[in-house]
């Protein structure tokens, strides 16, 4: 069984986001595999270690440097990679289209991907891909069992969890609680250098959405210090809560 894992290269989660000319600047930013996708890679490798998967293919759509994310996944233990060259500004629709095309060419039995990307947080791509391919889809899986051509997952649902079973091939998006991704060993890194990575151009599809403007969250205002007698202070603070912070107090 072939398992295909989708990974996105994102900013390090601790990176300091800065805007330059109205766009997010990537100067001096460390790029990583989207941590949610890292879990999907780990799950693919574990399926191979269990003897369920025979091959783990890592696919990433993005700029040329996204090959680093693919190499990291290969160092963890995936077998080969495909880099889909695409403008990083492509929206979820264009991205899903491009990836779905590669997936249908690769013809895996299972597609794994993180349920959300740490940068734009849109949670759309795996679901759109399942829709385009017409495959069953499980979203936000916290467990995964493969048997008799079926996948069974526990999933997060509002206020609880649900167990879903689908026939393969299917697209499954993973939650971080699914596993703990491994740290690539030097042995893995050395072997990864020899593993094949194909580069293909993304299917030319126009994005359906356009980002109009980026803005940073307002800077945290400095605190206000009050001094005086306890009784006066209490009045002052109450006044602040009511009139300046405008917090409604329910009775």
């Amino acid at each position, binding site marked *: 069984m072939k398992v295909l894992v989708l990974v996105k290269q994102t900013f390090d989660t*601790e*990176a300091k986001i800065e805007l330059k000319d109205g766009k997010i600047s990537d100067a001096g930013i460390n790029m990583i595999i989207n941590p949610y996708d890292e879990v999907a890679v780990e799950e693919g490798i574990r399926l191979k270690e269990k003897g369920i998967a025979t091959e783990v293919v890592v696919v990433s759509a993005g700029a040329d440097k996204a090959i680093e994310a693919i190499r990291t996944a290969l160092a963890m233990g995936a077998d080969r990679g495909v880099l889909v060259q695409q403008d990083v500004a492509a929206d979820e629709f264009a991205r899903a289209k491009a990836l779905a095309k590669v997936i249908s060419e690769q013809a895996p039995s299972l597609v794994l991907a993180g349920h959300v990307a740490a940068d734009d947080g849109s949670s759309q791509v795996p679901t759109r891909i399942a829709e385009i391919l017409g495959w069953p889809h499980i979203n936000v899986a916290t467990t995964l069992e493969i048997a008799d051509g079926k996948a069974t997952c526990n999933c997060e649902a509002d206020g609880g969890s649900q167990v879903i079973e689908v026939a393969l091939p299917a697209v499954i998006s993973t939650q971080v609680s699914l596993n*703990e991704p*491994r740290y690539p*060993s*030097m*042995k893995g890194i050395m072997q990864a250098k020899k593993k094949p990575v194909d580069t293909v151009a993304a299917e030319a599809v126009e994005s359906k959405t356009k980002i109009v403007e980026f803005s940073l969250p307002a800077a945290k205002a400095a605190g206000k210090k009050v001094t005086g007698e306890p009784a006066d202070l209490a009045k002052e603070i109450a006044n602040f809560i009511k009139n300046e912070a405008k917090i409604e107090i329910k009775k």
Partner: protein
Amino acid sequence: MIFGFEPLEVYDIPMRVVGANVPYEWLIYILMFIPLGIFAFGLYKRIRVWLLANGRINRIDKLGSRIVSLLVYSLGQAKVIKKPLAGWMHFFLFWGFFVLFIAAQIDAMHFWLHWPKLEGGLYIGFSWVVDVLGFLAMIGILVLAFIRYVQKPDRLSDTKSSDGWIIALIFVILFSGFLIEGLRIAAQIKLATRLDEIVYEAKASPFGWLFAYLFAGMSLDGALMWHRILWWFHMALAFGFIALVPFTKLWHIITSMFNYFVRDLEASACRMVYNIEEAESFGVERIEDFTWKDIIDLDACIRCGRCQENCPAYLTGKHLNPKLTLIQAMKAHWDAKAPYLLAAKDAGHAEGHAEMAMTAEAEEAKPVMEQHLIYDVVTSDVVWDCTNCRACMEHCPMFIEHIPKIIEMRRNLVMWQGDMPGEAQMAFTNMERNYNPWGVGFSNRAGWLQERGVRDMVNLLPEDGGDFEYLLYAGCAVAFDDRYKRVGEALIKVANKAGIKFGYLGTEEYCCGDSARRLGNEYLFQTLANSNIESFNNYGVKKIVAVCPHCYNCVKNEYPQLGGQYEVYHYTEFLAKLLAEGKIKMSRSLGAKLTYHDSCFLGRHNNVYDEPRTVIKATGCNLIEVERGREFGFCCGAGGGRMWLEEHAVEGYKRINDTRTDQLLEPNPEMVITNCPFCLTMINDGVKGVESEAQVLDVAELVWRAMQ
């Protein structure tokens, strides 16, 4: 003359008696080749086995220092006597045996060359020394037996029957020697016409003279007969002793000399992996891949247990016991495996075990050859338990290198097997992405300066770019640990008042890499270290003041391996220097009662014990020394990268930091003083846990308090 012998006489002048009254005495000069041959054969066999080691290490440089080391630690027993009672008893035993051995050599030389002549005063003096030291050796072995069998300290918990019969052999050799001497003197007394003809023996052989009293009632013939019998008995045992050396624990007599000569003479540092980019494997997975020094270490271990009784992991119930679960476990594995490796080498096959499988020994061979050093012999629990506190290496009288072995195995686990605790993975990822083990965004590395209001007191090089004498290598804790930022602040304020403006690299300062290296991630260490060295060189750094002892040890002792040579101070050394130069003036005497915790990386790894104490005392505090202080300092539990790993308390024991906290709070101090961010965190946790009122402060904070 062959069957005859020299009769025992009373001589005109005091004179050493060699071989008189013993028929066939000359025979021993032929028979001695038997034990010597066995000894040489044993030595050859052990050295062949040592040469099976694949790892390379250069330990034959600096010959002068090595010869001094050999003399100081063998003849001077300098490390052995660090443990007072057992050490001094061994000192007596060593010197007694050594001098008796020399005396035997002189006798042999006299037999062959008739030189030197020991007569008159020379004889009396020589004989006195041999007699007294021989007697002290006998006292020594008795006390050592008492310690092992009556006191039974925990460190000797693995006593074997061979320990007993070796003690018995040594005692019987010494005791029979005195009986022979006593018989010979008793016979001479009986032969003498007047007592004053022989009375010089009371001076020359004070203890032999006492033994002679035992035989006062014996006839002359009886004494002469017993003298002959015991003489041969004594020689047979002495020869047996020599033959047994390579095959029993007596082997330590030889291995200790090897180890005193080839010990690590450098400052404490992890072993360097050169050309890591081209390496084809990492760390040590098979025991034969260790260096010959590591293999000799296994032979050198005399099981004295000084490592065990000072190991924080062992003392809190962990799997690691440096003696038993590390060195002795490896020795047993090596002794079992080496014959197969030798057979394979002799057969000219690199992979000898495939060949062995064809022989009758196959069933026996398989388990040993298939045992995995890390998983089956030492176990990964043991490998991860170590805090690199260096207590084992500090107290080992044999200079066995425990930490390098642990680190080689960690390197294999991390870089080759990819098998490590999840927390270690997290720390590595954080160091890779944000250059600090906490994983806080690196872009804010200089933010603490503003936060603590000391931005203007330092020269933030990437922004201000001015001249500076000392670079403040603040380290990750000062930059990202809220509690430790206050220590950085205090240090900058103290320096500022002393008229010193540090240079600081801010975002261009990376983690020193100590935790990565000691957790086995050599590649990550070298990446971080190279970045730092590049930054240091960019700004022309010459002198560095490090806040954290881990940074200090790493930059001072390990960066030179990568070409980074700087004058490095720990900030306590720096403060002591400022104090001595009169640049620090205390405004008040704090007068607090406090205890001080020696961090392992400042203390044992770098022997900095006095400077922090000098600085603390200058604040007018009453420093109470705890029982485990200085070289005996007990680790806080965070060294060797364990800061980032969870420590689970073993049932019936406290965690390492809680154990240490109890020791530090024992004198009921108002404050506990540390010099390391890891120690501060660990001890603070411990103090909170017992709801003590004691404040945990760093040396810098104490000094700043006294200066205000």
